[in-house]
């Protein structure tokens, strides 16, 4: 197993998806080395990627000067946490260097929109992850707005 497969297998969001589903996620991911002080996303930028944490520590600066610090490999920085209507709304700053996997946003949303057990499992795990790590983040109702519009 290579790096990303290990991370996905241990991720709260992706571990319950099937091996095939995880492989598909791995196929749209690109490994980035990140250094202390680097900014991965800034509010107002076009949201092109979601991020899966491999190692290191990231700080997510959100609206009303709230913040979330993530440092567990497999933590997923995406959707409500990161973007809205295809634009980043959160600043992602590297507090300690390591590596992240950048997942192509459009390809990921395409996968998650499918009517499949893997998509449903990942979305359910995502909601739980969000409730546990960032209960203050407003949930998006994609059933009304559609995935592309919501995230």
């Amino acid at each position: 197993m290579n790096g990303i497969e290990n991370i996905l297998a241990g991720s709260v969001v992706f571990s319950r998806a099937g091996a095939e589903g995880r492989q598909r996620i791995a196929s749209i991911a690109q490994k980035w080395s990140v250094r202390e002080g680097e900014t991965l996303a800034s509010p107002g930028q076009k949201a092109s990627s979601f991020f899966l944490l491999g190692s290191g520590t990231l700080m997510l600066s959100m609206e009303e000067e709230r913040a979330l610090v993530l440092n567990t490999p497999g933590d997923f920085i995406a959707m409500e946490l990161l973007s809205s209507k295809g634009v980043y709304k959160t600043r992602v700053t590297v507090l300690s260097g390591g590596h992240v996997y950048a997942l192509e946003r459009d390809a990921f949303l395409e996968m998650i929109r499918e009517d499949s057990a893997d998509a449903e499992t990942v979305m359910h795990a995502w909601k739980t992850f969000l409730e546990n790590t960032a209960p203050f983040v407003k949930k998006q109702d994609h059933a009304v707005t559609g995935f592309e519009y919501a995230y």
Partner: protein
Amino acid sequence: MYGLEAISANNGWSIAVVGITIVFTGLVMLSFCISRLHRVIDFLEKFPDRKERAAKKKADKAMKKNGGVPAFTGAEKESAKQYRLLARTMADHFSLPRLLHLAEISGLDKPHSRLNMLLEAGIINPDTEGYYTWDLDLYRKIVDRADKDK
């Protein structure tokens, strides 16, 4: 003299055999190197993780030696004090990005990793609303202890 006769007369057969052997050996060595390449790539890929694990092990050992309290170096302790001064100008439940911004404009050394150090040590802790609090008791324990050790 032409053809096979000429080849034999000028050691052509032995030269050909030596040539074939050299090329064949070269190809065998090349294929062996290619077959081992994945191990080299694996090693290089896992190298940063090994480095991180070693650093964590070292920090854990130092923490154990320090009675379960993270051990700060002199420079780290100095940064903790400077962060404390900045945090004192803010509310009890303060914004972490704002604290980092203040640290950056104040010219603190390695503001990102030092902030991470305070988070990892448990001196700065998140509340449930996305804001952070300062654990003064733990801060005093770590910094005072470091002072006494000097």
